């Protein structure tokens, strides 16, 4: 059996879910028998591959850039997994929603700075009006709540996916876990 191609993607999240992924520690070696990481912030690939079996997506959709990325990921992925509360529910990044993007840009780049007070117009992608979970943009196949989902949860779900076994997500994790 050829190994499953797995990608991990980082949108508007704190990287905590990726830390949890790395927290699988020596179990990553076991997993490496079943899967191959073809794209991720922790490997070198620059372009999202043409065909991916499983994509684990961390983070909410908060900018035009995130929106472009998630659509591309969906187009090339068989099983898309929303990894963590930000991807599943907006979570901490969505706390700006009641106030709008101008308010937080002002706070970060004007009110809280003493020099060079200006809102960047290049490099930092334009923010969307509201931060949304990824399933409001593309179809999501598996939702893994948790902030972050534990290494154990990630391991159980990945092994189940790789071996074609069913898995009961709610027995493993919840919002805020």
């Amino acid at each position: 059996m050829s190994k499953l191609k797995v990608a991990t993607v980082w949108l508007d999240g704190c990287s905590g879910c990726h830390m949890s992924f790395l927290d699988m520690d020596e179990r990553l070696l076991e997993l490496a028998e079943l899967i191959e990481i073809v794209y991720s912030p922790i490997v070198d690939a620059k372009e999202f591959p043409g065909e991916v079996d499983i994509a684990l997506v961390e983070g909410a959709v908060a900018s035009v850039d995130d929106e472009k990325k998630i659509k591309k990921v969906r187009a090339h992925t068989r099983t898309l997994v929303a990894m963590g509360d930000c991807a599943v529910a907006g979570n901490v990044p969505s706390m700006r929603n009641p106030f709008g993007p101008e308010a937080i840009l002002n706070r970060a780049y004007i009110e809280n700075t003493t020099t060079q007070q200006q809102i960047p117009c290049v490099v930092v992608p334009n923010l969307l009006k509201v931060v949304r979970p990824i399933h409001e943009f593309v179809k999501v196949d598996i939702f893994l709540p948790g902030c972050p989902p534990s290494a154990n949860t990630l391991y159980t779900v990945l092994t189940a996916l790789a071996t074609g076994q069913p898995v009961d997500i709610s027995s493993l994790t919840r919002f805020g876990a």
Partner: protein
Amino acid sequence: MTDAVEVKTLIIDDQEVSARRGQTILEVAREHDIHIPTLCHVEGLSNVGACRLCLVEIKGSNKLLPACVATVFEGMEVVTNSERLRRHRRTILELLFAERNHICSVCVSNGHCELQTLAQEQGLTHVRMPYRNPQLSVDASHDRFTADHNRCILCTRCVRVCAEIEGAHVWDVMGRGINSIVITDLHQDWGSSTCTRCGKCVQVCPTGALFEKSKIGTDNPKNPDFLPYLNLMREAR
């Protein structure tokens, strides 16, 4: 003189049970260890049937009844857990999450919240409706407690415990529909209200909406269990 207790027999989830006249379906189910999820109901307070999580099916009727307020009748056949009921319960929970701002990961009640626990128990892994993200206030004017309207689900437990048990009736509901919020006195700050500082509302609040300052997080669960005991002591007097 004692009234003869009128006994009703009924079936809950294929189990034959007997009950006293006037008992609610929920009471009878709990006496027989049959689990029906609830949210606005709390042992020791009146029931308002507000959250609809406890809806059950009655054979021969296509109307769903809230088990916390519906009373038993002779020959009743109750179903407490069907695919239809599970679907409704999940939808109710989704609407509650979408209505205000629930960010469990940074909530004072993370790990001991009844809404969060119910979501997990009912297999809810995401919310299909778009979040409303309303702008809501946090009242930290009280020197001991805080009210965070972002987390309130309008179950009115606080209103009932303050009126029925403490007898102070500081809490009430203001506004209509989606604009409803719980208020203290006539919408004064909690800190300058007629609050007696008993803390009962905090203990019965199922979510992170009411909490005791500096007592937050997983190590500080709420304790609503004092209510049945308090009622017992009162009746004994």
